[in-house]
C-alpha cells in the first residue's frame, strides 16, 4: 500500500500482504519484481522447493496476479467478445482458462475467468490490461475495476494440499472439482468473521487450490496453513521452483513463451493462439470475438509455426537453444523458450517454437546447447524429439474427492 510517508518513487515495488511472512522464511534473500510487487524467487534452494510441489504441499504467493472485477448486465456479452472461448458455457461457481487476442488474432494474454455470480466475473491475468478492457467495453453496459490490491491470493499446491486445507479447518473443500470454486468461512480459531474463496485451480499440473482472501486475513491464513501442514512437510516456494513444475505441466508463460501483442515492437514476433497450440480455446461458432476473422484466415492458411514439447537427449537443459532441421545446423527452424531437466519425469524437456512443417509429433530435430564448464564454453548438438504435452499430468489432479496420501 502507498502512503504519504512512503511515496511510490521511494518504494517502487509494493509488498504483498504475505510479505512479512515470506521475508521471515527466506533464507537466501532472493526476491524479484513481479507485476509491481516484490515476491520471492527462491526461499531455500530450488530443488527442495520443487520436490515439495511434487511430494508435499506448498504455499505460493499469487497476490501480484492482476485481478479485474467485471460486472453488469452486459458482462457476459463483453467477455464473449473479448475472449476466444464461449464464456456463455461457464456456469456460476466455475473457472475457465482462456486467452484473448487483438484484431490481428495475436495473443494479448491468457488468464482465468471466475464466474462469481449471474453477471459478475473475475478475470485473473499476468499483466495489466485495463486500457484494453475499457476500450473493449465501448458500447457495453459493464463495469470493470482492478481489484488486485483488495484481494490477497495464495496457491496451496501439492499431493497433500487437500488434506492440509481440511486440517486447517476448511471442511468440504474436498468436494471442489477441478475448475470449481467455493466460499468457505475462515476457521473459527482465527477469530476473524470472514470468508475466503477457494478455487481448485493451479499452475503445477497436480492437485492444488488457490485461496482468495481479504488482505487483512492473509497472515492468519498463512500461519494457520503452516501450522496445519507441518506433518505434511508444507513449505513456501518461490517462482523458480514453480517454473519447473509449470514446464512439466506444459503451461505457457507470458514474456517467456510469448510476448503480448500489446508489447511487441518487431513485426512477426507476435504469436497467435493457433501457433501456441491453444486452438482448443477457439470457439468459432459462438459469434464474433476479437481476432476471429484473422484467426479463421490463419486456420485456413495453416499456422507458420507451432509451440511444441521437446524431449532432448542428455540432461543439460536446452535454455534458449536454437533448433535445426539437421545435425549440421544448416537450417534454423526455431528456438526453445522454456527448458528444464524434469526430476519427476527424468527427462530433459523443453517448450519450443518450431516452424512448420517440423512440428509433427515424433519428428526429430536438433538443439544447439551451450554448456558452461567452469567458464569454458562447449557447444553440443543434441537430438530432440517433438513430443506430446504435458510432460507431467498426474491422475490425482482430477480425482474427486482427492485422496489424503
Amino acid at each position: 500500500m502507498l502512503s504519504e510517508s512512503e511515496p511510490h518513487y521511494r518504494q517502487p515495488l509494493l509488498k504483498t500482504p504475505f510479505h512479512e511472512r515470506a521475508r521471515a522464511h527466506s533464507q537466501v534473500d532472493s526476491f524479484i519484481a513481479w507485476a509491481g510487487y516484490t515476491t520471492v524467487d527462491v526461499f531455500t534452494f530450488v530443488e527442495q522447493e520443487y520436490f515439495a510441489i511434487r511430494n508435499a504441499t506448498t504455499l505460493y504467493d499469487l497476490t501480484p496476479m492482476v485481478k479485474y472485477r467485471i460486472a453488469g448486465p452486459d458482462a457476459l456479452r463483453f467477455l464473449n467478445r473479448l475472449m476466444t472461448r464461449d464464456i456463455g458455457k461457464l456456469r456460476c461457481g466455475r473457472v475457465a482458462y482462456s486467452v484473448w487476442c487483438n484484431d490481428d488474432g495475436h495473443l494479448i494474454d491468457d488468464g482465468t475467468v471466475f464466474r462469481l455470480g449471474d453477471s459478475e466475473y473475475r478475470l485473473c491475468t499476468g499483466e495489466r490490461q485495463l486500457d484494453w478492457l475499457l476500450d473493449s467495453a465501448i458500447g457495453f453496459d459493464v463495469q470493470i475495476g482492478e481489484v488486485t490490491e483488495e484481494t490477497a491470493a495464495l496457491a496451496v499446491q501439492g499431493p497433500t494440499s487437500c488434506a492440509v486445507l481440511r486440517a486447517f479447518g476448511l471442511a468440504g473443500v474436498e468436494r471442489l472439482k477441478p475448475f470449481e470454486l467455493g466460499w468457505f468461512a475462515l476457521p473459527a480459531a482465527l477469530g476473524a468473521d470472514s470468508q475466503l474463496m477457494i478455487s481448485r485451480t493451479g499452475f503445477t499440473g497436480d492437485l492444488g487450490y488457490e485461496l482468495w482472501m481479504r488482505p487483512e486475513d492473509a497472515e492468519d491464513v498463512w500461519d494457520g496453513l503452516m501450522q496445519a501442514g507441518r506433518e505434511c512437510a508444507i513449505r513456501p516456494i518461490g517462482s523458480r521452483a514453480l517454473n519447473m513444475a509449470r514446464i512439466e505441466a506444459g503451461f505457457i508463460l507470458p514474456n517467456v513463451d510469448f510476448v503480448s501483442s500489446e508489447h511487441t515492437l518487431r513485426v512477426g514476433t507476435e504469436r497467435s493462439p493457433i501457433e501456441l497450440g491453444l486452438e482448443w480455446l477457439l470457439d468459432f461458432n459462438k459469434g464474433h470475438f476479437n481476432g476471429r476473422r484473422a484467426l479463421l484466415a490463419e486456420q485456413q492458411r495453416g499456422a507458420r509455426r507451432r509451440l511444441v514439447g521437446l524431449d532432448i537427449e542428455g540432461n543439460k537443459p536446452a535454455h534458449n537453444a536454437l533448433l535445426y532441421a539437421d545435425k549440421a545446423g544448416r537450417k534454423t527452424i526455431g528456438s526453445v523458450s522454456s527448458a528444464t531437466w524434469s526430476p519427476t519425469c527424468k527427462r530433459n524437456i523443453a517448450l519450443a517454437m518450431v516452424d512448420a512443417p517440423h512440428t509433427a509429433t515424433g519428428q526429430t530435430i536438433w538443439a544447439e546447447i551451450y554448456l558452461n564448464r567452469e567458464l569454458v564454453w562447449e557447444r553440443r548438438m543434441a537430438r530432440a524429439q517433438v513430443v506430446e504435452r504435458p510432460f507431467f499430468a498426474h491422475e490425482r489432479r482430477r480425482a474427486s474427492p482427492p485422496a489424503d496420501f
Partner: protein
Amino acid sequence: MPANAGGADHYDCIVIGGGHNGLVCAAYLARSGRSVLVLEAASQVGGAAITREFAPGFRVSACAHLLHLMPGSIVRDLGLEQRGLQFATDHMPTTAIAPQSAPLPIDPDNPSVLAQLSAADAAAFPAYRARLRRLAEALYPVLDSVPPRLGTDSWQDRLALLRIGWRIRRLGRPDMRELLRIGGMCVQDLLDEHFETPLLKGALAFDAVLGTCAGPRSPGSVFPLLYRMAAEAQGGTLTRGGTLAQPVGGLGALSDALARAALAHGAAIRTGSAVERILVRDDRAAGVVLQSGEQISADNVISNADPKTTFLQLLGGEHLDTGFVRRIAHLRARGVTAKLHLALSAAPQFTGLAESALSGRLLLAPSLDYVERAFNHAKYREFSAAPIVEVALPTVRDASLAPAGKHVLSAVVQYAPYELAAGWPQAQARFADLVIDALERCAPGLRASVLAVELLTPPDIERQFRISGGHWHHAELALDQFFFVRPVPGAAQYRTPVDGLYLCGAGSHPGGGVMGIAGRNAARTLLREAA
C-alpha cells in the same frame, strides 16, 4: 416525383440514409441492375443537402448551401440536369468584406481593386492561384479513386499508388518540390510568403479553415485548401471549373434530382424510416431493423451515416474488434461550424458592395490574425467573440425562396465548438446576436430588417441531420484522416470488417462537401466485389 417506397422484404442492397452520397450510391447500384432500397429517417431525402422552411414563407438550404465540388461526371452519369437540376447561378463571385474597409473581390482574373491596395499582391495573385491549381489538379486522382490498401500484394493497389505517384511526378521538379514543401504547412506561412494585404490573406485563409477545427496557424492547414481546389477543379462542366453554384430551389433541388435518378433506375426510397440497427448473420450484414421494429433483409447494407453512428450505434462493438472500435472512437468528428439563417424584410446593404457581388458569397475574415483569434476560442470550448462568416443571399438569384421583395441570408459561421463549456442552450441566442452584430457592422441596417433568426449549432446539426458530433464532413478533414486512413484503417476502401457492410458517406474518402464521390466509389467497390 414518382414514388416508389419498395415493399419487398428482401433487397440486394439497402442504403441507410438518403443524403446526397446515399442517393448517388443507390442510383449507381440501381443502374447496374441491383434491387435497392434507400431508408431515410427524415421526412424528406437529402440529408444535409435539403431546402426547408425556417420561417413562414422563407426557405433555405439548411446545412450545405453552395454547390461546387460535385464532379461533372456524376451530374452527367445520372442525368441530373434532365431530372430538374437547374442553376440560379453557376458563377458566384467571392468578395471579402470587413467593417470600415471597402469590399475586395477575390478574383485573380480581375485584380483591379486589389491593385489599388497592393500592386505587388495584384501581380502575385494569378501566379499563386495558377500554381495551387496545378498542384490541386495533380491530386485529383487521389480524390476520385478508391484508396489503395498499403502493404498488400494486390496489383490493383499497386497500380493505384503508381497512378498517384505518376501524376505527382509529372508536375515537374519545381512544382513537385512545392507540393512536398507546402503539403503539411500552415496556410498563414504560405500566404505571408505571397501577399501583404490583410483582407486578401484573411479571405484566402477562410477556405483553408472552413469546416475544420483549425486556424491559419495550425499545421497542415494548407491541405484542406488544396483538397478544396482539387475538388473544385473537377466541378468541370457543372460549374465552369472552380466556381460556386446555387441550384434553383436550393440544395434540396439537387437531392430531389438525385432521388429522381435513383427512382428512374429502379431504386425504392422510404422516408420517415429510421434504422435502429444493422442485422448481422454469420458474420455478414444481413439487413436492418427499423425503429418501428420492422425487419428488412438484404445481401448488402451500405451506410450513408457517419462512421461513429454506423459502427458504434447501428452495428455495435459486439461485431467488431476492439482495436477497430478504438480507432472509430478516436476519430476526430466534432463540428466547429454553425449555420445562421436570417429572414430579411429587405436586401441588406453592404457598404461599398457592388450590386453584382450580392449574388456571390461574401467572406467576413478581415485578416489572418482575426481568423486565428476566432479559432483561439474554439480551443477552449468557447465560441468566437469575433467569428468568421461566409454569407450567401440565395434570394438575390432565386426569388422562389422568400415572399416577394423579401430575402434570405444564409451564413456559415465559425467557430462554434460542439462541446461548448458554457453549454449551447444558454449561449445559442447570444452567439446568434453576436454574428448579426458582426454583419451589421458591414451592412448597417441589417438588424432592423431581420424578421426571423435560426441558428444551427453543431449539437443542432447532430440532432437534425443525425450526424454524430455535428460535423458536416462527418469526420474532421485533415491529413491524419484522409485517403487511406479515412475514416480509419480497416474501413478506408468503403468496405468494413463485416462482410456485406459498406460505408458511402462523407466520413469515407474523399470526405465532405456536396461531392457524391464517396457514394459513387462505394457503389463501384460493391459492384466490383460482386462481379
